[in-house]
């Protein structure tokens, strides 16, 4: 059990990304008491439905991640939501052309809160090798991104690592975060309602 006096470490300092580590609380025979934040965070991270947005080779690596060998189902994510309305996590895997930017943004806007975004691969993160007139130089130019996964393309292990980092964020997120002034300022920065 983690130390209750240190309920949240920043993601960059997180030593472990254990998917089974329980939140801080008091447990005993047949019961476990914790805060509402932690219980909700546990539920959110335990059944996160990803919205798949795969445009190129990173999507192929994702398919491997979803397959039996790497098995994304181990993390409660085997139910892909091909509708943004029912998704929690937007996974952008691959090159996004500038012309696709508005479509991606619309998908993001259709996902209800709380929502997370994972940018998989160099192209989604920065444009990658495509420093050219037609390619969006990183999806963080149109939507806020929670976790970037480097690689060209990243191996399934790296994608899983990115997913665990998103889970870490979801698990430790305050219930009030989405109402905070900082979060509103972030959305305002992107011009998202």
């Amino acid at each position, binding site marked *: 059990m983690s130390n209750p006096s240190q309920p949240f470490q920043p993601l960059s300092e997180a030593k472990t990304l254990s998917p089974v580590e329980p939140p801080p609380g008091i447990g005993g025979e047949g019961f476990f008491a914790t805060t509402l934040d932690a219980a909700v965070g546990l539920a959110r991270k335990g059944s996160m439905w990803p919205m798949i947005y795969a445009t190129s080779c990173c999507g192929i690596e994702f398919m491997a991640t979803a397959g039996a060998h790497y098995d994304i189902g181990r993390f409660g994510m085997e139910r892909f939501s091909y509708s943004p309305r029912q998704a929690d996590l937007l996974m952008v895997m691959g090159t996004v052309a500038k012309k696709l930017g508005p479509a991606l943004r619309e998908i993001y806007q259709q996902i209800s809160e709380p929502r997370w975004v994972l940018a998989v691969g160099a192209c989604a993160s920065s444009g990658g090798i495509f*420093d050219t007139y037609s390619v969006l130089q990183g999806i963080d130019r149109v939507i806020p991104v929670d976790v970037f996964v480097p690689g060209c393309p990243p191996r399934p292990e790296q994608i899983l690592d990115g997913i665990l980092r998103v889970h870490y964020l979801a698990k430790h997120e305050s219930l009030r975060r989405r109402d905070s002034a900082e979060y509103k300022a972030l959305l305002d920065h992107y011009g998202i309602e």
Partner: protein
Amino acid sequence: MEETLLAELRRVLGDRILSHEADDVPTIVVDAPALYDVVDALYSDENLAFRFLTTLFGMHYPAEAGQGERLGLQVLLYNMRKGQRLRVTCSFPVETPELRSLTPIFPAANWMERESYDFFGIRFAGHPNLKRILNIETMTVFPMRKDFPLEDQSRDDKDDRMFGR
């Protein structure tokens, strides 16, 4: 170029042929304002009957000695019955990138002319829907012109110390 084809072209086009060459595809160079009439004549003539538009695309010639910066257009025509190909090319100053649209002759020219507009900024008078076709509508440049830099348009994460430039 094959003599019989050249003779036929001269019969139909006369002195509108500025020059010609026997490339892999027989090529004639015409004046840009005359392009529409030339293609129309090649289409209408019963003997030549170039009635299939293979492709159409823009070009950009940077300024050279003795000649300013120019844009060009190439039209590849095909006579299916004879298996005969023909390339019609023209060039015009970059300041006045205006041509008459070929869509009244070849409806297939519609998207190709939009592409030429999108990438080279060639404007086609009489085109039914001249707007960008491949790039995002808000783009303000014509990216296939050679004065448009290939890289570093909107990138700010490329550090020369790491990229070894």
